[in-house]
């Protein structure tokens, strides 16, 4: 794009961000403060992920951008266009083909490999924020590994609901040291983070923090021995590709409780259908709740 540097940011800024990334990789799960810049997209819309991607992307990279697991959601389209415009790199919707995948709220269903990097967009990087509003205090809690309050929260859930009621942004312990927010991915995706071959980078632009999980690192979802971590399950298979092991979105088909469940990872679903898998294609009805 005329008048702008490759990937928008100037090289000084990229170097500053790369230094922050290196530090983050060296201390897995630790939130590194960095001089986040104003980007031409709004804060809260992925500026952290965009700055991380902008500072690691090269001319030979192939970029995939997803939001809610889908390549075609408006914000994913907008970010992909931004990089196509400012770098000219090839973009793709195929998970296996991408060297960098920027994501909001999902990890692709297809396992990632050691030559891929997953860049997460993070709204609130601090997993202790809901228990302690003050940055000065939460930094001390991390420094001293004083994480008792995290389990107090889980205890409260079980005492109130009979189970841990957190369904997304479910806190994890990284490398047996730092408690980390996995960004608002569903807890369904948490197990994928554990010992992932790909490098995972997290960028929070508005909050000015970068953190990382290096390849093959321990990532454990917090739980109790007698109330172990569980991921979501569905009674239904994907209505389009019949998958029983992917995260499903619920699509409302009418105003009388009709629902259809389809894969949230659109690339995964399309690939399965190309390989000949089919779902029922039929909606299901959720009436029990409504009838009460």
């Amino acid at each position: 794009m005329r008048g702008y540097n490759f990937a928008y940011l100037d090289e000084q800024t990229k170097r500053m961000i790369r230094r922050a990334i290196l530090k983050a990789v060296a201390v897995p799960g630790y939130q590194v403060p960095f001089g986040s810049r104003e980007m031409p997209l709004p804060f809260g819309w992925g500026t952290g992920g965009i700055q991380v991607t902008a500072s690691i992307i090269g001319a030979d990279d192939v970029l995939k951008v997803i939001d809610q697991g889908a390549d075609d959601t408006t914000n994913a389209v907008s970010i992909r266009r931004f990089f196509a415009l400012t770098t000219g790199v090839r973009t793709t919707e195929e998970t296996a083909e991408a060297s960098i995948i920027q994501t909001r709220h999902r990890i692709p269903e297809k396992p990632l490999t050691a030559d891929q990097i997953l860049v997460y967009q993070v709204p609130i990087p601090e997993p202790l924020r809901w228990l302690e509003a003050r940055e000065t205090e939460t930094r001390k809690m991390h420094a001293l590994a004083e994480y008792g309050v995290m389990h107090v929260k889980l205890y409260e859930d079980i005492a109130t609901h009979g189970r841990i009621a957190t369904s997304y942004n479910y806190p994890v312990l990284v490398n047996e040291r730092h408690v980390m927010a996995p960004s608002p991915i569903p807890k369904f995706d948490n197990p994928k983070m554990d010992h992932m071959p790909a490098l995972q980078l997290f960028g929070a632009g508005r909050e000015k923090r970068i953190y990382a999980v290096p390849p093959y690192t321990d990532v454990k979802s917090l739980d109790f021995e007698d109330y172990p971590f569980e991921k979501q399950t569905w009674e239904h298979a994907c209505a389009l590709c019949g998958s029983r092991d992917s995260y499903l979105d619920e699509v409302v088909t009418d105003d009388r409780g009709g629902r259809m469940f389809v894969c949230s990872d659109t690339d995964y679903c399309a690939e399965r259908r190309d390989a000949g898998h089919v779902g029922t294609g039929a909606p299901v009805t959720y009436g029990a709740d409504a009838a009460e």
Partner: protein
Amino acid sequence: MYVAVKGGEKAIAAAHRLLAERRRGDRAHPGITLKQIAEQLSLAVDRVMSEGSLYDRELAALAVKQARGDLVEAIFLLRAFRTTLPRFGVTEPLDTGAMRISRRISATYKDLPGSQVLGPTFDYTHRLLDFELAEEGDPNSVSAAGDPGDVDERVPRVVELLDHEGLIEKEEPDDPDRPVGDLTREPLGFPADRDVRLQNLARGDEGFLLALGYSTQRGFGSTHPFAGEIRMGQVSVELVPEELGFAVDIGDLTVTECEMINQFKGSATEPPQFTRGYGLTFGEGERKAMAMALVDRALRCRELGEEPSSPAQDEEFVLYHTDNVEASGFVQHLKLPHYVDFQGELVTVRELRAEARQRKTGT
């Protein structure tokens, strides 16, 4: 058969076309020029420059035009542009004592050296809609009301007068060799020093600072302020190029400065004296400068040994929430799809309800 929603790309392109059309409005009327905006909506341009942290009237006018008059959006445009600008150097501190004054008032002295200069102010206008202005063109061709004639001689600042008597705290940096902090390069850390706090407030949202400043007057952290001095006018910007080793005048800025003077009862170590709150904006930004000075003083509670008890004195609360580019982005990000997370919640709520139902029927 249901087909997954597609077409984000097309929808965005169409939305952008619609936006461009709305921005232009009815083509029966001529398009507005940047000159017109800079000249006739100059206070909008001033605010965009201040909170956009970039002094450039033309770019700020362009931002106002492109943002359809939405000033927070215009500020955002200017900030994003600012990111791409290389940094040539750091100027010398502005000498507002040498300001060529267009307006200068003090609420603490009836008359004072340099006198009170009312200047171009809305104060004392009756807020009556002027229907003559509604006419096309320029009905009441203003005769340049005898240009107030910028006051040229050096006008001493009110705090300097108090300073002679030792009645007001000295304002000296703890360490004059330490470079001034820069939030656009280094993220905010706590506790924050005053230089960083002032930069944060100078970039902060006028509405938010106005409300916070107002809250201190209504008892949420009262600082007993007096408007010691408000002055607006032009100041020179000087830079010392490394090759030259002496200061060169590189241009003029219009700025508004406010110094609040506040009561201070003294402490175990300090005798009673007046303390200061400081506000500065680009262009004409009196309301913002005053609010900023109130909040600056409230935030100094820690160094002055006052017990912080109200929102305006809470450093983390104030400094983390002043920036309207951050705030606007994060509030509006709620428009983005969250259906993956919402699905997670749906699954959980259904399970919890099913368990509750079982418990009810089971017993």
